[in-house]
């Protein structure tokens, strides 16, 4: 199996959200994003950026679905934000209706705590977040299929270009 993994270190919450936003701008309905990382590592923050990139209107607050389990937002295509944190059995996945959402391939499906039930995930882009210090996060993006590998490379390129642009414009200001 081909596998590609890219590493990005974000230095602030805003940068983590920017990475999410660039991801959202590049993906379309049917893409599955599997997020992993400790409590407080920035999974929901990443998805807040992702929603922005998918054109979810600002009046929709993207909040944690830990309790509500699946939140849906309208955008360029629908965004389904699921969280497996409270799920204990693989049967629960069926009960919350996640298979229907995955099968329809209608929207982007972002799944937090995806490592709890890896076996249910279709082809996806995996995002793993690690706390480096207070605001900085080590983020790895990986994929298996050729389409998703191409996507992850583009996400990483475009994000890095954007960061470079921002730091250059800050340099000019100084």
């Amino acid at each position, binding site marked *: 199996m081909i596998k590609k993994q890219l590493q990005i270190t974000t230095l602030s919450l805003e940068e983590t959200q920017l990475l999410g936003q660039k991801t959202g701008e590049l993906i379309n309905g049917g893409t599955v994003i599997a997020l992993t990382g400790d*409590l*407080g590592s920035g999974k*929901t*923050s990443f998805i807040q950026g992702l929603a922005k990139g998918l054109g979810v209107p600002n009046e929709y607050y993207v909040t*944690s679905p830990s309790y*509500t389990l699946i939140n849906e937002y309208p955008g360029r295509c629908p965004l389904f934000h699921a969280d497996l944190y409270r799920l204990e059995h693989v049967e*629960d996945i069926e*009960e919350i*209706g996640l298979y229907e959402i995955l099968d329809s391939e209608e929207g982007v499906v972002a799944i937090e705590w995806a490592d709890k039930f890896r076996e249910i995930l279709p082809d996806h882009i995996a995002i793993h977040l690690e706390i480096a210090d207070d605001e900085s996060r080590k983020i790895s993006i990986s994929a298996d299929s050729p389409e998703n590998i191409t996507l992850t490379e583009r996400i990483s390129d475009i994000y890095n270009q954007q960061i470079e642009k921002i730091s250059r414009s800050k340099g000019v200001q100084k």
Partner: protein
Amino acid sequence: MKVLGIETSCDETAAAVVADGTKILSSVVSSQIEVHRPYGGVVPELASRKHLEAIVPVVDEAISRSGVALKQIDAIAVTRGPGLIGALLIGFSFAKAYAFALDLPLTGVNHLAGHIHSVFLEPDPPPFPFVALLASGGHTNVYHVISHTELELMGQTRDDAAGEAFDKVAKMLGLGYPGGGVIDRLSKEGDPDKIIFPRAYLDKSGFDFSFSGLKTSVNRYIQTHEDEYQNQIPDIVAGFREAVVDVLSYKIINAAIKKGCRHIAIVGGVAANKRLREKVRQDAEEKKIKVHIPCFHLCGDNAAMIAAAGYHYLTNGGVSDMNTDVYSRVL
């Protein structure tokens, strides 16, 4: 008017019979009854299929405990949203069939409006208009409550709900689930001023909340004090709880002042938090504002509040027809 209320929006299957939107004749919540006894009490697992298994016994139990004959029920109120579609559909479809078979009016109730109506099940309810803080595992909302059927959302959380922050902090410290009760208990032995966690007021004149940063800073504290934090748990949870309660109290009192309201309602699962109840009462007293908080068993999800809200929907002409559907979110 006797209303049968049904609630299945999240984890609980619940049914209740309420007279005239104020008097509870019965209130049954599945996690509190026999269904779960073989597993040793409350099972914190989710329960779409459990709703399906529990709905008939729970409704039967509510009718039988109410002492009201089925033919004396005047209407049915059921949660329509927000919530998990699969879970909502079980209660809603059941209620439709029940209403159709008994030829009774049916009304679909907003779960969040239901929580606000829990204060009308207590003596001396607040007069309109008042402001309400709804804080639970899934929501942290501030409302201006204009009448039984008109709510204006003034603010909400931008990331984590208050109840979720309690549960996740409890989990980080290995204190188990749910977190609210154990944090309350341990906080009594701790000093809330020893470890100061950040208060996220956001825009101080606004009514939005953010609890994600607080959760992360507790996590960072644990990571950076790996060797000693085990001995500081009471101080950590007391400091954390105070940070949550400070912000909730500040915002709801400011909301009352902004709207010129002399009454505040605190509802939802987090309303069971002892420190929150105490702090809001203290702060409100200084401003001559009266605080209304339902008793503990009406803070969590229940169907009595749905029946109470449904009564007012029905008396205001809000009858749902058989084509009405559930909704997963409000906006």
